[in-house]
């Protein structure tokens, strides 16, 4: 790990200013993703701003919905009474990810910003446009079983690996931030993660120094809520494919897919196909898919996983 200086920020505005005013500074929250990458020298910040003491660790009622402080741990968020009752898809998604130890430490904002699990991104001997812009992509033509089938580019075919954000996408969450100049904004989760395009090292629309303060969940959707995750073992593995869905008694609803794209993958026109069954939905949601030979299985897998969810919704 490279040497770095460390400070604890006192207020959100201070934290944002501190990152913006240091060359090569980063926020650290739980540290479970950043430190992993720093040990491998994939991330090499010279200065860390610890946001752990900012008091953004509460879940509050806000209008018809709730506002989640960025420092609420994954465990606390998934176990919160209102979340369990009104947004169970979120509890399910969080509990399907990582391990008990990691969920205790992982924060809401840090989870949204976790980086890809592409094996070549992790191997500093290999070319990777995301880790070293312009160096090429070892995954294209390499082992790509885990990687993306849609929304990818000729520069990068990695996925956004997280679970929590897939549920947040179905719930139409908004990410609230403060910028170094003190202005605040609210970013719909649909727009938060970018497609890779020619710049796979730029993963979200956050500006340098912009701090996530909260995530807002609008009015509960009701219905039956599901998070189905398919992975290589029953627990403690990243998704090959996941499905977050909210299904109403009349068969309409909302659905997002994880493990397939640079962001939680949701296509509104595909939502509209829910009453027509899993094939209709997946045909629409994955109409523009560009899978590799290794990962083409993800599309029928998404269809079968959604079919299972729809059968459970009827039961």
């Amino acid at each position, binding site marked *: 790990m490279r040497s770095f200086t460390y400070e604890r920020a006192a207020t959100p505005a201070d934290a944002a200013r501190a990152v913006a005013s240091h060359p090569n500074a980063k926020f650290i929250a739980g540290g479970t993703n950043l430190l992993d990458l720093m040990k491998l020298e994939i991330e090499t910040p010279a200065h860390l701003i610890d946001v752990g003491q900012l008091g953004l660790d509460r879940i509050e009622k806000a209008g018809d919905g709730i506002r989640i402080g960025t420092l609420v741990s994954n465990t606390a968020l998934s176990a919160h009474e209102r979340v369990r009752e009104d947004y169970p898809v979120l509890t399910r998604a969080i509990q399907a990810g990582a391990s008990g130890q990691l969920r205790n*430490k992982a924060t809401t904002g840090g989870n949204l910003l976790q980086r890809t699990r592409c094996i070549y991104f992790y191997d500093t001997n290999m070319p990777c446009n995301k880790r070293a812009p312009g160096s090429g992509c070892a995954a294209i033509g390499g082992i790509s079983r885990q990687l993306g089938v849609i929304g990818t580019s000729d520069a990068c075919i990695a996925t956004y690996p997280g679970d929590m954000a897939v549920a947040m996408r179905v719930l139409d969450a908004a990410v609230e931030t403060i910028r170094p100049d003190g202005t605040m904004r609210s970013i719909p989760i649909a727009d938060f993660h970018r497609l890779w395009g020619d710049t796979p090292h730029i993963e979200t629309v956050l500006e340098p120094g912009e701090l996530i303060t909260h995530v807002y969940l609008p009015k509960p959707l009701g219905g039956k809520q599901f998070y189905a995750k398919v992975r290589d073992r029953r627990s403690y593995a990243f998704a090959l494919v996941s499905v977050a869905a909210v299904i109403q008694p009349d068969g309409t609803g909302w659905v997002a897919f994880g493990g397939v794209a640079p962001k939680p993958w949701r296509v509104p026109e595909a939502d509209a196909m829910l009453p027509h069954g899993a094939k209709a939905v997946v045909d629409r949601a994955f109409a523009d898919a560009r899978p590799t030979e290794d990962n083409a299985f993800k599309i029928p897998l998404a269809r079968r996983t959604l079919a299972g969810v729809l059968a459970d919704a009827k039961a």
Partner: protein
Amino acid sequence: MQDKGIFNLSRRGMLAGSAASVAVSQGTIASAQASQASSSPPARMAVNLTVNGKPHRLELDTRMTLLDTLREHLQLTGSKKGCDHGQCGACTVMVNGERVNSCLSLAVMHEGDEVTTIEGLGSPDDLHPMQAAFVKHDGYQCGYCTPGQICSAVATLEEIRKGIPSHVTEILTGRMRPTNMEMRERMSGNICRCGAYSNIVDAMTDVARG
């Protein structure tokens, strides 16, 4: 004489030497040079933390993980370094009552925190009920993952008691119970190379029943 010295190098020494240079050439040296090239010495900071009830004030390189601090500075070598990337659970300790991977946390992030390690749970003459149950049920073989397994097992039962749901909980709003499936799922962050899993769950079941 010097020549002889060189040629007297044992085969084992040669192999160890060349293996080390291979490992080093893959980045360690590069980073050492890079940090030497940057003018300032590695940053250090003071941190206050309480470990197993005892307060400590330490002056540390900011890079020290909580795990390395426990092992190297406080000589609490019960917590183990397995993967050092949060994947195996051998480093599991409790911070303010919650289990975490001590390898994925910086010591400086724990100002004012209360840490409990396997040494703080019980002693050889006065075992914690979970330690005693692991002995009774043979919940290990080589023992390397055991301190992390025991810390995690104690925390798991507490998480169930507090009503924190898991991936296998059927009714999210109901009461959580320490079933076999629940304990297996909740312990999935602790890997055991010897495969003592079923005995570990037996030990936990004993403690859960009281």
